[in-house]
């Protein structure tokens, strides 16, 4: 009885509502069964390229299975893969307690993630230290590059963004103007042009003999680009702090940096955690753009494997793109759920 009541109220309350329900059912009918057929029931699960050439009714999952290594690590040497795995594990180990609001020692955790971990990761991934073989960044690829670009972007943009946001709210006109010019410039141009600039224009600005590899140049571009966005997020948090907090801090004799570091920023950053996560989601999706300047991120690696003649199969491209979409979706959706969770938590903290 309850369910019938629910149906009448939510789906068939009047003619218009019933029509909408029928329309929605029709949309589900034309989209879901073919999708399930393609992805599961009529898909190829075992075999190789030849199997996929014969059975073309659904996804070619062997393509993903056979190339999973490339999708995750790119062309990273097989004997050195433990270094990538260790980097992943160290990152996750630092991230999980950071994301749990109840975990202790947030300050040390943040210092580990923003200072220590990037240094460890650089040494582990690039090597070229005693005991480690150097691995050229042109061999990096797949999810590894996606994560390297995204994590570098966030690690650099957080401190830089905070400085820019403080600069934009500074009393000193010259500092304020410079910060505004910097922020508005990077926010006004598309990331594609930034990457073009990093890969073709930046070499012209460096003295003879000094050269960065392509990945590092793009990392610089991405970091500057995202710090402008981060600055605007942080500025929102700074604006939300009531004037009394500034005045009270000054009244007890704190200097500017003490006021900011001990009173204002801890509150402001807590307020904007959802905004920071959203910026990171945007950055994570934007990492795919590096393939335009010839770096193989996850999407670029999927495209590269598609040109392998062994896998020139009818459903190969669709399968590859759907797989990449699924990976990105899981990451981004997970982060956005976390952002919603934090938003609720922060709201209840202050209003109840």
């Amino acid at each position, binding site marked *: 009885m309850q369910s019938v009541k629910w149906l009448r109220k*939510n789906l068939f309350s009047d003619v218009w509502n019933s029509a*909408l329900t029928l329309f929605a059912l029709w949309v589900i009918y034309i989209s879901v069964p073919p999708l399930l057929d393609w992805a599961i029931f009529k898909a190829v699960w075992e075999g190789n390229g030849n199997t996929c050439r014969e059975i073309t009714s659904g996804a070619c999952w062997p393509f993903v299975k056979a190339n999973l290594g490339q999708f995750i690590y790119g062309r990273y040497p097989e004997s050195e893969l433990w270094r990538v795995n260790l980097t992943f594990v160290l990152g996750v180990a630092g991230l999980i307690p950071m994301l749990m609001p109840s975990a202790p020692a947030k300050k040390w955790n943040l210092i580990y993630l923003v200072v220590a971990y990037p240094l460890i990761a650089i040494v582990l991934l690039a090597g070229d230290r005693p005991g480690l073989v150097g691995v050229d960044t042109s061999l990096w690829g797949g999810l590894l590059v996606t994560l390297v670009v995204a994590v570098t972007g966030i690690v650099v943009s957080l401190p830089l963004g905070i400085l820019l946001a403080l600069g934009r709210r500074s009393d000193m006109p010259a500092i304020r103007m410079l910060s505004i010019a910097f922020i508005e410039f990077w926010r*006004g141009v598309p*990331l594609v*042009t930034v990457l073009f600039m990093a890969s073709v224009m930046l070499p*012209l600005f460096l003295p003879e003999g000094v050269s960065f590899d392509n990945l590092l140049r793009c990392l610089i571009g991405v970091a500057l680009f995202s710090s402008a966005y981060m600055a605007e997020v942080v500025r929102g948090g700074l604006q939300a702090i009531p004037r009394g907090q500034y005045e009270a801090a000054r009244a007890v004799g704190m200097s500017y940096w003490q006021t900011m570091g001990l009173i204002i920023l801890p509150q402001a950053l807590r307020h904007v955690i959802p905004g920071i996560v959203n910026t990171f989601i945007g950055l994570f999706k934007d990492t795919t753009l590096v393939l335009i300047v010839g770096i193989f991120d996850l999407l670029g690696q999927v495209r590269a494997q598609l040109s392998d003649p062994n896998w020139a199969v009818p459903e190969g491209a669709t399968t590859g793109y759907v797989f990449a*979409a699924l990976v990105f979706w899981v990451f981004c959706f997970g982060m956005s759920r976390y952002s919603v969770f934090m938003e609720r938590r922060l709201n209840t903290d202050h209003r109840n």
Partner: protein
Amino acid sequence: MRAAKSKGFGSISWTNPRLRSLVYQLLAIGGTVAIISFFVLTARANLERQHIASGFAFLDHTAGFGVIQALIPYTEESSYGRVFLVGLFNTLLVAVIGTVFAVALGFVIGVARLSNNWLIAKLAAVYVEVFRNIPLLLQLFFWYFVILRPLPGPRESIKLLPDVFLSNRGIVMPAFGSTQATLAFVLVTLATIIGVIIMRRWARKRFLATGQTFPDGRLSLALLVALPLGAALIFGAPFSLTPPVMGPFNFVGGWHLLPEFVALTFGLTVYTASFIAEIVRSGIQSVSKGQTEAAYAIGLNPSQTLRFVIIPQALRVIVPPLTSQVLNLTKNSSLAVAIAYPDLVAVFAGTVLNQTGQAIEVIAITMAVYLVISLATSYAMNVYNARVAIVER
């Protein structure tokens, strides 16, 4: 305090905040100037050593390559400056059409998320969560390489609407043309619009002065339909439609939309609409229920409540983030380069840069275009915000 400070400079010591602030600012300006001049000097030396020309003279040189879509007359003999304009117009075309569709779709999905119908609300939520969590570039690749390119050729094309066909060559649709009645039709329509605006101003003025209402809404709708329609009846059809005809290999006549254009516009629309939907939803939710109840209590009917109470307040929340989404769409149209749609970045920062090697000038011009668009929009936004801002007591 400020006045007292500004009288004298104060002591020359590090504890003097005015002196300290001055030193910091000079350091910041000096540092910026030093970095910029270092880059300029290195760049000049590098360009000289590599024998790369500098300056903007290349804009007059002959381009010598074709562009698959040009809204202004263009041939291979045209100059690089002309290529720039072609790319700019192609970018603006995608941006404008994408914006129109994305805003329309975004409003529909956003309202659908708040629907009383459980199924519709859930479908809209699924749409939003799917499309905003997948990178735009990946979506563009999907629409272009997976959906559009494997479509059958023009001979077996899919009929979307009468005389509108979809094939691997894109979309073919009837071409609009002008007739001798076009001018009269456009003039009558313009005159009607101006007349309606004047009438509504007058009606509002009279309402504020005397409280007498005037059926200006219904009347202006009637006028806007009747007068142009009358003009069309008197002077003849205002537009001619030339349907495409199947030729030996492809359609002849009609308007051809490139598959790259279709994929880019569609992808941008679908992606941006998912963000706009969330903005619309939160905008409508931001108007508290008490507003509706208060409007009913003073005797407004539901449509008046919507028009005078809910929409104006929701728009105040919706418009600023909506503008930034429109800007995002414009900037994201630069992903065109990945599927070879000839937008500004693809033809100018891509082909022209490769041919001339003048990276600095080309990238600077390209970035300047986007910067001008962004800054102009933010300026317009600030003006709008100032106008709709709540006047507090």
